[in-house]
């Protein structure tokens, strides 16, 4: 910093006032200069490609035929998807199941550990960091490889079960359990929402608990009457982010199933199926149609979340109005 602070009097000098119009225009120009890379990205990499993909979703385009021979086939891709492609519905179900089961469990784990940590006095920083570590590593190919092997027939998970006399199986390779294996990997990464919960818990005024204790409210009552309502904005924030995140799972499903979504489509996450159709079979038109349905579905779910949020999310500043 080489700047010297000027006294506020300088700002009201007549010279600055008379040239008021010009700096304003200069600022507008500067605004667009600074925004240029982002605007190029918005149009070039986001908006225009989105429109192209909307167009392609009505065509039979594959990457191998030249663009001049692309045929308009109307709603055929969408019709095929909904009526003639059982794998498509498998992908929808697998993804919904994953997002609807793994996301709430992940958030519950995050909140539970955050509550335990919030009361802890010593070593909180270390605990927090170590619980957060899986969130940084869990999305990688390496961890998916590890997961597939832990939940293998000869894997560590079966060895733990054997201690309790429960017969093991190849969890990651069985049609009934492969998706659950992926869910556990998702839940394992509860550290990121946990850190956000911890920050939220720090914001809850301790006087509320003290007042409740004076009134005779026990810890369970305090949790439901104070902690949960005060935390609801943070819960909502995590819920929206994690749900959208959950719909996009790809890496683990790809690695565990060796890129097939198997066994028997049991790990066929939507994005994996999109990849298989678009980049495995080069059916770019079909994949574009899938992408648009995905976009609309994720958008709708977000809207629904926001709409229901109005009934249970409590913002403390509303009381002050």
């Amino acid at each position, binding site marked *: 910093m080489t*700047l*010297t602070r000027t006294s506020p009097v*300088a700002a009201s000098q007549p010279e600055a006032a008379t040239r008021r119009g010009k700096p304003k225009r200069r*600022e*507008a120009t500067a*605004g*667009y200069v*600074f*925004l240029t*890379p*982002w*605007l190029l*990205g*918005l149009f070039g*990499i986001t908006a225009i*490609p*989105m429109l*192209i993909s909307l167009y392609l979703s009505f065509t039979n385009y594959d*990457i191998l035929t030249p663009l001049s021979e692309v045929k308009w086939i109307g709603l055929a891709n969408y019709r095929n998807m909904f009526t003639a492609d059982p794998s498509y519905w498998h992908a929808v179900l697998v993804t919904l199941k994953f997002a609807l089961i793994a996301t709430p469990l992940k958030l519950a784990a995050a909140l539970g550990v955050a509550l*335990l*940590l919030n*009361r*802890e006095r010593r070593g909180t*920083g270390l*605990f*927090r960091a*170590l*619980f*957060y570590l899986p*969130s*940084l*590593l869990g999305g*990688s*190919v*390496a*961890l998916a*490889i590890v997961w597939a*092997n*832990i939940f293998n027939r*000869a894997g*560590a998970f*079966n060895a733990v079960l054997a201690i309790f006399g429960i017969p093991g199986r190849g969890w990651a390779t069985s049609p009934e359990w492969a998706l659950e294996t992926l869910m556990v990997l998702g839940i*394992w990464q509860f550290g990121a929402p946990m*850190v*956000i919960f911890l*920050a939220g818990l720090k914001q809850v005024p301790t006087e509320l608990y003290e007042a409740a204790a004076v009134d005779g409210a026990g810890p369970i009552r305090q949790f439901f009457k104070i902690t949960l309502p005060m935390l609801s904005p943070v819960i909502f*924030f995590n819920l929206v*982010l994690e749900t*959208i995140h959950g719909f*996009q799972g*790809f*890496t683990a499903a790809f690695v565990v199933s*060796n890129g097939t979504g198997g066994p028997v489509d049991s790990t066929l996450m939507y*994005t994996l199926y*999109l*990849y298989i159709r*678009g980049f495995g079979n080069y059916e*770019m038109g079909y*994949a574009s149609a899938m992408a648009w349905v*995905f976009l609309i579905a994720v958008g709708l779910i977000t809207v629904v979340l926001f709409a229901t949020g109005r009934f249970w999310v409590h913002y403390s500043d509303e009381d002050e109005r």
Partner: protein
Amino acid sequence: MNVKSVARTSALVVLLVIVLYPLVWMVGTSFKPQDEIMSTVSAIPKSFTPGNYPDGWTHLDVNFGRFFLNSTLVAGLVIIGNMLSCLLAAFAFARLRFPLRGLWFGLMIGTLLLPSHVLIVPQFILFKTFGWVGGPFPYTPLVLPHFLAIDAFFVFLMVQFIRGIPRELDEAAKIDGCSPYGVFRHVILPLSRPALVTTAIFSFIWTWNDFFRQLVYLSDLSKYTVPVALTQFFDSTGSNALGPMFAMSVLSLLPVFLFFLAFQRLLVQGINTSGLKG
């Protein structure tokens, strides 16, 4: 009271052991010989086999050093691109008045929730049309979008950060004759260092772990990045190179782990201020 706190700490320790077990197991297994991986499940190797590391390093036709170099190159360029382009956009949104600012800001927030998989097909076609897919430098499609502030998360993070810088500093600089460019150069840029560091760390970790895009755009083995190369282990050899595969898995996570050790406080702060995911 004391009993309660002991119970709480023990519960946390037990949970932590469960949570960290897969990582410990991964490291332990990377030092086991093949037959031991198949037969025992304990995390501690009975016959210590560091040979898995050199074996894994040279297991594929191209050695792993190349993949690490490729990943580092991509991550490095993405870091530079994100820091530059996102700060420029964030400065405009946070400090400058210009027509349609509200509209653009709304669109930026809108792209925060836009799933990137939706765009992969048309972007691929676009980049292929430009001749950027494959070739001697196949990383353009992976890197270029980041020079155009495609990561709205970082724009948002920096907008929030810049809003926290006292406006009086801008005003003072203006009175000293600074144009908006001068304000950016002499006030915002030097004071934004914490936000830039956070952006750099997250850019690194996300790019290093990213698989989907790298899988789509890279097709030549010598251009592979680490995650794409790792999948070659189970493609080509089935299960007969488990030890080397685990060894390379451990190595692939090492840079992220070192970043975590060095910056864990900043990382935790980073997700607190903006809700960034790891």
